[in-house]
């Protein structure tokens, strides 16, 4: 893992090294990676339950109506919080435990601390869930965590930053792109969480609190999830394709463009509110600017793929990764349009936005995690997948489901927007999109089915790993 191993890039920074050259056993606690992934997948299922309940409620097929702890509104909160803090955060912690020691050649600061973080984070997520079910939510979108858990969660984030930040700070020599993203993301996540959860609760009300809320929703995606996820893409893609990233220069543009433009956009969530117009315009312009940055990043990754295109067919994790990138590009192209005031007139408050949110949270980030997990589970279990065809089912059910969901919600949103504008009775807008909501329900069921298949495959692979004799020194063929 030195610069010399990567002649093409020796001027700049070391690309991630090939597995086999590294004695990762002392550096990485694989059991913990596994635990984090399993915890993440568990919360993903919980989140699905919430989404399903709300989808059934909207089409008026909810069989469990009238039960207080199954209130669709409360479960709507569980739905988003379980994804953000349960699934995504846990999966990141798992993936970071895998990647950071490999990139820095140092273990994380402290193994006991890692285990403590594991336990503490599950306490945070579970007590959030309990609080939400009991109706104790805080009125911060994506941060409904009850106020009494916020300090605990913030302390957890600080520990995460210290535990992972230390090896990065201590390492010598040039840092690979991935580590830039990680380092910045640890600072951003902490600041974002503190800002969004405390300021509008204790210090501000009204319009300026709205500006903070917009910034929080936005930064949570842009400064917590996005940089960590792209950092992991910069790590996994070159390893799987066995070549360095196409252009170092473009990765610099991507990182600094994101760092500068992304945080400036929060207010674009609240156009036409009492927030002054000049601030709204600032947010709109920086949003359009960041789409150019995104384009450079996507070009860089497709440049890397150039010449190895078949990997998308044969190599499942690569297929997941590039599917996510295509959808990322779609999401961002959509951003550049929907952020304009003319689009906002029609689509704000509608299902268009819900479609957009699902596209980015599921179609991009979750899809990337499924790719990482498809790559890592066999390595954690030291055996190949139990069934390659179930892996394919997992992919097609998920990718098909999210595509249909995105399309149906986008259309529903347009219809809602025009129904409202036409001043017809409110109920017309609901009757009018009922069919789209039914399609959405089935698209969601397809995504759920995909993950059930995945979990089954993981379970069988685990069983298989217990049955086969401990692997000999020859590495198993992972098939992916």
């Amino acid at each position, binding site marked *: 893992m030195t610069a010399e191993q990567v002649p093409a890039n020796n001027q700049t920074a070391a690309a991630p090294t090939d597995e086999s050259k590294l004695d990762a056993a002392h550096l990485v606690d694989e059991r913990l990676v596994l635990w984090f992934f399993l915890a993440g997948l568990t919360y993903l299922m919980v989140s699905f339950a919430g989404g399903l309940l709300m989808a059934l409620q909207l089409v008026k097929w909810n069989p469990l109506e009238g039960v*207080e702890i199954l209130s669709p509104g409360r479960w709507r909160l569980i739905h988003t919080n379980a994804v953000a803090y349960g699934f995504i955060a846990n999966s990141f912690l798992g993936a970071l435990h895998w990647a950071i020691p490999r990139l820095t050649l140092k273990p994380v600061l402290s193994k006991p601390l890692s285990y403590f973080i594991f336990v503490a984070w599950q306490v945070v997520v579970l007590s959030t869930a309990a609080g939400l079910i009991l*109706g104790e939510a805080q009125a911060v979108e994506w941060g409904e965590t009850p106020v009494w858990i916020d300090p605990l969660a913030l302390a957890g984030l600080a520990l995460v930053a210290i535990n992972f930040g230390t090896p990065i700070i201590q390492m010598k020599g040039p840092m690979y792109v991935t580590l*830039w993203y990680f380092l910045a993301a640890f*600072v951003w996540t902490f600041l974002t969480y503190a800002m969004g959860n405390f300021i509008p609760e204790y210090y501000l*009300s009204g319009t300026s609190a709205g500006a903070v*809320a917009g910034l929080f929703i936005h930064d949570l995606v842009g400064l917590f999830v996005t940089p960590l996820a792209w950092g992991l893409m910069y790590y996994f893609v070159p390893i799987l394709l066995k070549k360095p990233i196409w252009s170092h220069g473009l990765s610099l543009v991507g990182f600094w463009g994101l760092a500068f433009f992304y945080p400036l956009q929060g207010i674009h969530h609240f156009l*036409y509110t009492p927030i002054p117009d000049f601030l709204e315009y600032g947010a709109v312009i920086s949003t359009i600017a960041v789409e150019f940055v995104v384009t450079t990043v996507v070009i860089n990754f497709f440049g890397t793929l150039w010449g190895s295109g078949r990997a998308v067919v044969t190599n499942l994790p690569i297929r997941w990764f590039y599917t996510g990138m295509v959808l990322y590009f779609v999401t961002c192209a959509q951003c550049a349009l929907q952020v304009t005031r003319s689009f906002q007139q029609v689509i704000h408050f509608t299902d268009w*936005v819900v479609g957009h949110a699902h596209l980015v949270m599921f179609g991009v980030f979750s899809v990337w995690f499924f790719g990482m997990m498809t790559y890592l589970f066999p390595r954690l279990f030291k055996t190949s997948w139990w069934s390659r065809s179930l892996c394919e089912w997992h992919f097609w059910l998920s990718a098909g489901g999210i595509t249909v969901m995105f399309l149906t919600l986008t259309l529903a949103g347009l219809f809602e927007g025009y129904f409202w504008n036409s001043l017809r009775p409110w109920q017309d807008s*609901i009757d009018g999109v009922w069919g789209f909501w039914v399609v959405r329900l089935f698209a969601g069921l397809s995504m759920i089915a995909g993950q059930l298949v995945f979990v089954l495959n993981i379970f069988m692979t685990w069983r298989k790993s217990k049955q086969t004799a401990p692997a000999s020194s020859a590495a198993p063929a992972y098939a992916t």
Partner: protein
Amino acid sequence: MFESKSGILLIGGLGFFLLSFLSNVVVSVLLYQDMPEQSVEELAEQNTNALYLWQDLSVRYPEAFKKHFGEANEKTLAEALEVGHKAYVGEACWHCHSQFVRPVSNEESRWGAVASSEEYQNELNRPVLWGTRRVGPDLSREGGRRGNDWHAVHFFDPPSVSTRSPMPKYPWFFEGLSITAAMRRLDTMAVQDEAAGELADEIRSEFGETDEELTKSASKAWGMIRKQYPELAKERELSPDAPNKRGLAMIAYVQWLGSWLEQYPLYEQYTPIAEQIANPLE
């Protein structure tokens, strides 16, 4: 600088974050620093529109009201607003309803005055409840548009007043009907249905006229009602006519929304409820 640890931490991590905080947050804080934040008590004080409907609630559901809030005055209204606000947040009503009217898309014609900053400068907008999704309509001008009883029935079972509504039911905002409330219902039904009047008379002659006497023999009286009006008897368990504390507070909160505006639909002169009852024709 662009690839060094300090550059990334200080310029990217801290610097750009602070820049965005300055431009997005500090600027708007400075703009609104002269606008005082109102407390919940201030919101209830002298708010005749909201008080009017608060007193209406106390007459419409007298037992529940007495039990949970006592008297209908500014102090209890403030308390109700707080309880209602908490339920509004906890039930995630704000993920299906917005609370601001935009100057576009004909929203002024649908709901009235466009939202302005002063409206949100108060404790009940901590954090602000603008919302980002409308499954149901905007609620910031909801107060006074519907009667208290409409809201009660709507929370109990939305489709019964709003055909095909996908809004969830909130039966946990309600409790069971007391025997005295059930007797009042029989009295009302008697206008159209003689048998109901006869049943009421029969029960009163058997167990007594006063509320205390009736309450003492509640089970037996309910038994008589069940024989003739099984539907009504079911409401002994759970009834839209018996909102609990959260239910009353939720209705008060919804009726308060927009009560500060000129356009508030109840444009009659405010008359204390006792006077209204004394002179119904005034």
